[in-house]
């Protein structure tokens, strides 16, 4: 089957830094940390996690009630991101609604806050009398994709990967394949999640949540650092619009970058501990799909959540394939782990780095952990002419994803 080239012409973001991709990129560029101390710990217990990257002051009330009534916050944020991406790409209304545009938008789960509300009504007497119909549309697993589809009037394919923290990058990869192989002419892809204390609590059960920096939120998470102590959960929504370079040129849309490769594989060895060899294999398969060698990659944007096991495995996988020549950094030190949004928000940051020719360092990386050594960690910004970026996302359940971005040469 003939494979078409796939470019990105629109981006949209809502992040702990606020609404808009530009705001997020400005915050990243100035080294800000969007993690804050919460009023309450994630759960009742000694030294429970009490930091997160939460969204403040983003208003979704201008979304028409007919659509907003079915939206939990993450769907609202994603709709704002969708409008931003589509406006940037200047996609005509009849293209959005006529079947040529598809969606691929994942979240780790439906709205946990809405689940909580339903069960508060249901459990006391096992009664559904007070459970409103709208609640279901907020807690179903494909709530974000379905809500964006309804609100935009999309009649192309609607995909909703629920692959935990890989959901965003996997959704972009699925969208890339849909455009590359001619299934859709345009795909709006990415991921979203909204913060709930159960996220932090769940990571903490597995000793993977940061709990040692509750009084110094700006110092966590600390990817690859000797003193890292786990994930800082966060929320956000990130989307990219994909199409062919031909359709972009016809419309006069600016090409922000190109996707040239993607791979996703299962790590069957563990639900929680990535196998460095399977990290390596995923990146190698992504290179194969792009017909590139490891030496072609100019920068690696790591998943790097700040956990003890995950950061070490990713470092070892990168070192095995790339050695210590390629600059590596992760972006979760800036705003925490935005879960399903992270792969998409970080892809947007990668596009910016491709275009601007500078690389963001890993924030809070002060002392490289021995088990994370063997790769060239960026601890300060670096000006560099970048052609190819490899971006990783990994998830509980053993879902590995690697995406390859190329600077636009058209």
């Amino acid at each position, binding site marked *: 089957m003939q494979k078409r080239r796939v470019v990105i012409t629109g981006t949209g973001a809502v992040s702990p830094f606020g609404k808009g991709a530009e705001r997020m990129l400005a915050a990243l560029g100035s080294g800000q940390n969007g993690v804050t101390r919460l009023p309450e710990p994630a759960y009742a217990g000694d030294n429970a996690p009490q930091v997160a990257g939460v969204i403040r002051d983003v208003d979704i009330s201008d979304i028409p*009630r*007919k659509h907003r*009534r079915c939206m939990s916050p993450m769907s609202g944020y994603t709709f704002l991101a969708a409008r931003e991406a589509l406006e940037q790409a200047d996609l005509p209304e009849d293209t959005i609604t006529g079947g040529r545009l598809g969606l691929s938008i994942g979240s780790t789960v439906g709205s946990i806050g809405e689940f909580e509300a339903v069960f508060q009504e249901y459990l006391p007497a096992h009664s559904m*009398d*007070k*459970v*409103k*119909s*709208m609640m279901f549309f907020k807690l179903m697993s494909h709530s974000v994709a379905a809500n964006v589809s309804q609100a935009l009037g999309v009649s192309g394919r609607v995909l909703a990967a629920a692959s935990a923290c890989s959901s965003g990058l996997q959704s972009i990869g699925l969208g890339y394949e849909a455009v590359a192989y001619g299934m859709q002419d345009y795909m709006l892809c990415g991921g979203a999640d909204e913060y709930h204390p159960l996220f932090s609590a769940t990571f903490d059960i597995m000793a993977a949540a940061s709990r040692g920096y509750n009084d110094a939120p700006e110092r966590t998470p600390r990817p690859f650092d000797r003193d890292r102590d786990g994930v800082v959960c966060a929320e956000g929504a990130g989307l990219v619009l994909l199409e062919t370079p031909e359709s972009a040129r016809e419309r006069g849309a600016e090409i922000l970058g190109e996707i040239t490769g993607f791979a996703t594989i299962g790590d069957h060895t563990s639900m929680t501990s990535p196998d460095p060899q399977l990290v390596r294999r995923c990146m190698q398969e992504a290179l194969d799909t792009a017909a590139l060698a490891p030496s072609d990659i100019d920068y690696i944007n790591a998943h790097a959540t700040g956990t003890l096991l995950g950061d070490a495995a990713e470092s070892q996988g990168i070192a095995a394939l790339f050695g210590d020549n390629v600059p590596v950094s992760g972006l979760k030190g800036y705003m925490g782990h935005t879960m399903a949004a992270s792969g998409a928000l970080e892809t947007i940051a990668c596009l910016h780095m491709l275009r601007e020719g500078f690389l963001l360092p890993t924030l809070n990386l002060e002392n490289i952990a021995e088990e994370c050594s063997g790769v060239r960690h960026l601890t300060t910004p670096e000006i560099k002419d970048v052609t190819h970026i490899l971006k990783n996302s990994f998830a509980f359940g053993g879902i590995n994803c690697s995406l390859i971005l190329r600077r636009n040469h058209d």
Partner: protein
Amino acid sequence: MTNQEIITQTNEALVQEFELEGLELKPESLLYEDLGLDSLDSVDMVILFEQSFDIKIGKDPDILAIKTLNDLHNYVLGKVNARKSA
């Protein structure tokens, strides 16, 4: 609570729940065509009035005949007054 107070409270609950600010609520207003509500709103309207007036509506087939605001007022008045006299 007088019938007029019940009607006023019904209208206030509708305006708040379904964001009807700025719309003129006339007795002959059609819930779907004039007020922009739909079948999903009707489902949640049951819970809204059950909680607002401490009445039981459930899956009462009589609600299917409600088309206008006046129909709704009469239905709610009937339920509230029946509760008061029970």
